[in-house]
Protein backbone atom coordinates (compact mmCIF):
# COMPACT_ATOMS: atom_id res chain seq x y z
CA UNK A 1 0.00 0.00 0.00
CA UNK A 2 1.72 3.22 -1.21
CA UNK A 3 1.44 5.96 1.41
CA UNK A 4 3.67 8.78 0.18
CA UNK A 5 1.34 10.07 -2.57
CA UNK A 6 3.97 9.68 -5.29
CA UNK A 7 6.47 12.03 -3.56
CA UNK A 8 10.20 11.12 -3.60
CA UNK A 9 11.74 9.55 -0.51
CA UNK A 10 10.73 6.73 1.74
CA UNK A 11 7.45 4.98 0.95
CA UNK A 12 5.60 3.95 4.09
CA UNK A 13 4.52 0.32 4.04
CA UNK A 14 2.75 -1.05 7.09
CA UNK A 15 4.83 -3.68 8.90
CA UNK A 16 2.82 -6.53 10.33
CA UNK A 17 5.39 -9.07 11.36
CA UNK A 18 8.35 -9.09 13.75
CA UNK A 19 11.31 -9.76 11.42
CA UNK A 20 13.35 -12.94 11.83
CA UNK A 21 16.44 -12.38 13.96
CA UNK A 22 19.48 -14.17 12.62
CA UNK A 23 23.09 -14.04 13.72
CA UNK A 24 23.96 -12.55 10.31
CA UNK A 25 21.91 -9.50 11.15
CA UNK A 26 24.34 -8.67 13.95
CA UNK A 27 27.40 -8.39 11.72
CA UNK A 28 26.76 -4.83 10.70
CA UNK A 29 29.32 -3.92 13.37
CA UNK A 30 32.01 -4.01 10.68
CA UNK A 31 30.54 -1.17 8.60
CA UNK A 32 32.58 2.06 8.64
CA UNK A 33 30.79 4.91 10.37
CA UNK A 34 30.51 7.13 7.28
CA UNK A 35 28.58 4.42 5.47
CA UNK A 36 25.92 4.06 8.15
CA UNK A 37 22.50 5.67 7.71
CA UNK A 38 22.12 9.28 8.83
CA UNK A 39 20.10 10.61 11.78
CA UNK A 40 20.88 7.77 14.15
CA UNK A 41 23.26 7.11 17.05
CA UNK A 42 25.79 4.27 16.81
CA UNK A 43 27.97 2.76 19.53
CA UNK A 44 30.56 0.22 18.35
CA UNK A 45 29.84 -3.37 19.42
CA UNK A 46 32.45 -4.43 21.94
CA UNK A 47 34.47 -7.52 21.04
CA UNK A 48 35.36 -9.87 23.90
CA UNK A 49 39.04 -9.24 24.62
CA UNK A 50 41.24 -9.01 27.72
CA UNK A 51 39.70 -9.31 31.18
CA UNK A 52 41.05 -8.19 34.55
CA UNK A 53 41.64 -10.83 37.22
CA UNK A 54 38.87 -11.05 39.82
CA UNK A 55 39.84 -8.62 42.57
CA UNK A 56 41.22 -6.01 40.17
CA UNK A 57 37.97 -6.13 38.20
CA UNK A 58 35.95 -5.37 41.33
CA UNK A 59 38.32 -2.53 42.28
CA UNK A 60 38.15 -0.97 38.80
CA UNK A 61 34.39 -1.46 38.43
CA UNK A 62 34.52 -3.61 35.30
CA UNK A 63 36.07 -6.90 34.13
CA UNK A 64 37.06 -5.20 30.83
CA UNK A 65 40.20 -3.02 30.61
CA UNK A 66 38.74 -1.73 27.31
CA UNK A 67 35.94 -0.03 29.28
CA UNK A 68 38.08 1.16 32.21
CA UNK A 69 37.85 4.94 31.67
CA UNK A 70 38.54 6.76 34.96
CA UNK A 71 37.95 10.44 35.77
CA UNK A 72 41.02 12.66 36.14
CA UNK A 73 39.50 16.17 36.23
CA UNK A 74 40.14 19.02 38.62
CA UNK A 75 39.59 18.36 42.27
CA UNK A 76 40.00 14.61 42.01
CA UNK A 77 42.19 13.22 44.80
Amino acid at each position, binding site marked *: MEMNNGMPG*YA*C*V*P*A*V*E*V*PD*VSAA*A*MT*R*GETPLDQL*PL*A*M*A*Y*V*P*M*QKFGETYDGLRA*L*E*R*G*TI*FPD*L*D*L*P*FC*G*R*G*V*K
Partner: protein
Amino acid sequence: MWTYEKRLQYPINIKKPDANAAKIIITQYGGPDGELGASMRYLSQRYSMPFKEAAGILNDIGTEVLAHLEMVSTIVHQLTRDLTLEQIQEQGFAPYFVDHTVGVYPQAAAGFPFDALCFASKGDAITDLTEDMAAEQKARTTYDNILRLVDNPEVIDPIRFLREREVVHFQRFGEALRTVQDKLDEKNFYAINPEFDMRKNPR
Protein backbone atom coordinates in the same frame (compact mmCIF):
# COMPACT_ATOMS: atom_id res chain seq x y z
CA MET B 1 10.63 -11.05 40.64
CA TRP B 2 13.62 -10.17 42.72
CA THR B 3 15.85 -12.13 45.07
CA TYR B 4 17.90 -10.29 47.65
CA GLU B 5 21.42 -11.15 48.72
CA LYS B 6 22.51 -9.87 52.11
CA ARG B 7 25.66 -8.16 50.86
CA LEU B 8 26.67 -5.03 48.99
CA GLN B 9 27.85 -5.33 45.38
CA TYR B 10 30.99 -3.42 46.51
CA PRO B 11 32.21 -3.10 50.13
CA ILE B 12 31.53 0.15 51.98
CA ASN B 13 32.95 0.91 55.42
CA ILE B 14 33.13 4.62 56.27
CA LYS B 15 34.31 5.46 59.76
CA LYS B 16 34.29 9.27 59.80
CA PRO B 17 30.99 11.20 59.78
CA ASP B 18 30.68 14.02 57.24
CA ALA B 19 27.37 15.76 56.67
CA ASN B 20 28.76 17.93 53.85
CA ALA B 21 29.63 14.88 51.82
CA ALA B 22 26.29 13.26 52.66
CA LYS B 23 24.36 16.30 51.42
CA ILE B 24 25.84 16.04 47.95
CA ILE B 25 26.10 12.26 47.64
CA ILE B 26 22.39 11.86 48.48
CA THR B 27 21.69 13.28 45.04
CA GLN B 28 22.67 9.93 43.50
CA TYR B 29 19.87 8.35 45.53
CA GLY B 30 16.93 10.73 45.01
CA GLY B 31 18.24 13.31 42.57
CA PRO B 32 17.31 13.82 38.90
CA ASP B 33 20.18 11.68 37.56
CA GLY B 34 20.39 9.29 40.48
CA GLU B 35 20.14 5.53 40.82
CA LEU B 36 16.50 5.39 41.94
CA GLY B 37 15.33 7.24 38.83
CA ALA B 38 17.60 5.14 36.64
CA SER B 39 16.24 1.89 38.05
CA MET B 40 12.60 2.90 37.69
CA ARG B 41 13.27 4.18 34.17
CA TYR B 42 14.75 0.92 32.89
CA LEU B 43 12.36 -1.36 34.75
CA SER B 44 9.41 0.66 33.41
CA GLN B 45 10.69 0.62 29.83
CA ARG B 46 11.24 -3.14 29.67
CA TYR B 47 7.56 -4.20 29.45
CA SER B 48 6.87 -2.87 25.99
CA MET B 49 10.32 -3.64 24.53
CA PRO B 50 9.73 -6.45 22.01
CA PHE B 51 13.38 -7.34 21.32
CA LYS B 52 15.15 -9.89 23.52
CA GLU B 53 18.56 -8.27 23.78
CA ALA B 54 17.15 -4.84 24.66
CA ALA B 55 14.62 -6.29 27.10
CA GLY B 56 17.44 -8.26 28.74
CA ILE B 57 19.58 -5.16 29.13
CA LEU B 58 16.70 -3.09 30.53
CA ASN B 59 15.83 -5.83 33.01
CA ASP B 60 19.39 -6.55 34.10
CA ILE B 61 20.71 -2.99 34.31
CA GLY B 62 17.48 -1.92 36.06
CA THR B 63 18.13 -4.67 38.59
CA GLU B 64 21.84 -3.89 39.07
CA VAL B 65 21.01 -0.26 39.70
CA LEU B 66 18.77 -1.25 42.65
CA ALA B 67 21.99 -2.54 44.23
CA HIS B 68 23.55 0.84 43.45
CA LEU B 69 20.85 2.87 45.18
CA GLU B 70 21.48 0.59 48.13
CA MET B 71 25.17 1.54 47.99
CA VAL B 72 24.49 5.28 47.76
CA SER B 73 22.04 5.09 50.67
CA THR B 74 24.59 3.10 52.65
CA ILE B 75 27.21 5.80 52.06
CA VAL B 76 24.79 8.50 53.24
CA HIS B 77 23.81 6.41 56.28
CA GLN B 78 27.41 5.77 57.31
CA LEU B 79 28.31 9.45 56.84
CA THR B 80 25.49 10.62 59.09
CA ARG B 81 24.73 7.99 61.71
CA ASP B 82 27.34 9.22 64.22
CA LEU B 83 26.95 12.97 63.74
CA THR B 84 26.82 15.05 66.91
CA LEU B 85 24.29 17.88 67.22
CA GLU B 86 27.18 20.36 66.93
CA GLN B 87 28.34 18.80 63.67
CA ILE B 88 24.76 18.79 62.36
CA GLN B 89 24.46 22.53 62.90
CA GLU B 90 28.02 23.46 61.86
CA GLN B 91 27.85 21.46 58.62
CA GLY B 92 24.50 22.91 57.54
CA PHE B 93 22.66 19.64 58.02
CA ALA B 94 19.88 21.08 60.20
CA PRO B 95 17.31 21.54 57.38
CA TYR B 96 17.54 17.84 56.45
CA PHE B 97 17.80 16.74 60.09
CA VAL B 98 14.62 18.48 61.17
CA ASP B 99 12.53 16.48 58.67
CA HIS B 100 14.47 13.22 58.56
CA THR B 101 16.79 13.10 61.58
CA VAL B 102 19.58 10.77 60.41
CA GLY B 103 17.22 8.67 58.36
CA VAL B 104 17.75 8.25 54.62
CA TYR B 105 15.25 10.00 52.32
CA PRO B 106 15.47 10.23 48.53
CA GLN B 107 16.13 13.82 47.53
CA ALA B 108 18.48 15.84 45.36
CA ALA B 109 21.49 17.77 46.68
CA ALA B 110 19.49 20.96 46.11
CA GLY B 111 16.82 19.62 48.46
CA PHE B 112 13.92 18.75 46.17
CA PRO B 113 12.44 15.28 46.72
CA PHE B 114 12.57 12.40 44.27
CA ASP B 115 10.20 12.88 41.35
CA ALA B 116 9.17 10.50 38.57
CA LEU B 117 9.36 13.47 36.18
CA CYS B 118 13.13 12.89 36.13
CA PHE B 119 12.69 9.95 33.79
CA ALA B 120 10.67 8.97 30.73
CA SER B 121 9.14 5.75 29.56
CA LYS B 122 8.12 6.72 26.05
CA GLY B 123 7.19 3.33 24.64
CA ASP B 124 9.38 3.70 21.55
CA ALA B 125 12.39 1.43 21.26
CA ILE B 126 14.80 3.98 19.74
CA THR B 127 13.60 6.83 21.95
CA ASP B 128 13.83 4.87 25.20
CA LEU B 129 17.30 3.46 24.49
CA THR B 130 18.57 6.90 23.42
CA GLU B 131 17.15 8.35 26.66
CA ASP B 132 18.95 5.62 28.58
CA MET B 133 22.28 6.45 26.95
CA ALA B 134 21.82 10.10 27.97
CA ALA B 135 20.83 9.02 31.48
CA GLU B 136 24.05 7.07 31.95
CA GLN B 137 26.12 10.07 30.83
CA LYS B 138 24.29 12.34 33.25
CA ALA B 139 24.90 9.90 36.07
CA ARG B 140 28.59 9.68 35.16
CA THR B 141 28.97 13.46 35.17
CA THR B 142 27.30 13.64 38.56
CA TYR B 143 29.78 11.10 39.94
CA ASP B 144 32.62 13.10 38.32
CA ASN B 145 31.46 16.13 40.28
CA ILE B 146 31.15 14.17 43.52
CA LEU B 147 34.74 12.97 43.03
CA ARG B 148 35.86 16.61 42.74
CA LEU B 149 34.26 17.44 46.08
CA VAL B 150 35.08 14.57 48.45
CA ASP B 151 38.37 13.84 50.24
CA ASN B 152 37.87 10.66 52.21
CA PRO B 153 39.35 7.58 50.47
CA GLU B 154 36.68 5.40 52.11
CA VAL B 155 34.06 7.45 50.25
CA ILE B 156 36.01 7.93 47.01
CA ASP B 157 36.48 4.20 46.58
CA PRO B 158 32.82 3.11 46.19
CA ILE B 159 32.00 6.33 44.26
CA ARG B 160 34.67 5.48 41.66
CA PHE B 161 33.14 2.01 41.33
CA LEU B 162 29.63 3.40 40.82
CA ARG B 163 30.93 5.87 38.22
CA GLU B 164 32.66 3.15 36.20
CA ARG B 165 29.40 1.16 36.12
CA GLU B 166 27.77 4.11 34.31
CA VAL B 167 30.43 3.93 31.58
CA VAL B 168 29.77 0.22 31.12
CA HIS B 169 25.98 0.72 31.12
CA PHE B 170 26.28 3.40 28.43
CA GLN B 171 28.15 0.92 26.22
CA ARG B 172 25.49 -1.76 26.76
CA PHE B 173 22.55 0.56 25.99
CA GLY B 174 24.39 1.64 22.85
CA GLU B 175 24.80 -2.01 21.87
CA ALA B 176 21.13 -2.68 22.62
CA LEU B 177 20.25 0.19 20.27
CA ARG B 178 22.44 -1.43 17.59
CA THR B 179 20.53 -4.69 17.95
CA VAL B 180 17.25 -2.79 17.53
CA GLN B 181 18.58 -1.04 14.41
CA ASP B 182 19.45 -4.43 12.94
CA LYS B 183 15.79 -5.39 13.17
CA LEU B 184 14.45 -2.23 11.50
CA ASP B 185 14.51 -0.97 7.91
CA GLU B 186 17.81 0.89 7.56
CA LYS B 187 16.37 3.02 4.76
CA ASN B 188 14.19 4.64 7.44
CA PHE B 189 14.58 3.67 11.10
CA TYR B 190 11.71 5.98 12.01
CA ALA B 191 9.06 4.62 9.65
CA ILE B 192 7.42 2.75 12.51
CA ASN B 193 7.67 2.27 16.24
CA PRO B 194 8.37 -1.45 16.71
CA GLU B 195 6.78 -1.35 20.17
CA PHE B 196 3.38 -0.50 18.69
CA ASP B 197 3.43 -1.21 14.96
CA MET B 198 4.94 -4.68 15.19
CA ARG B 199 2.90 -6.19 18.00
CA LYS B 200 2.39 -9.94 17.73
CA ASN B 201 -1.36 -9.79 18.37
CA PRO B 202 -2.65 -6.47 17.03
CA ARG B 203 -6.36 -5.87 17.61
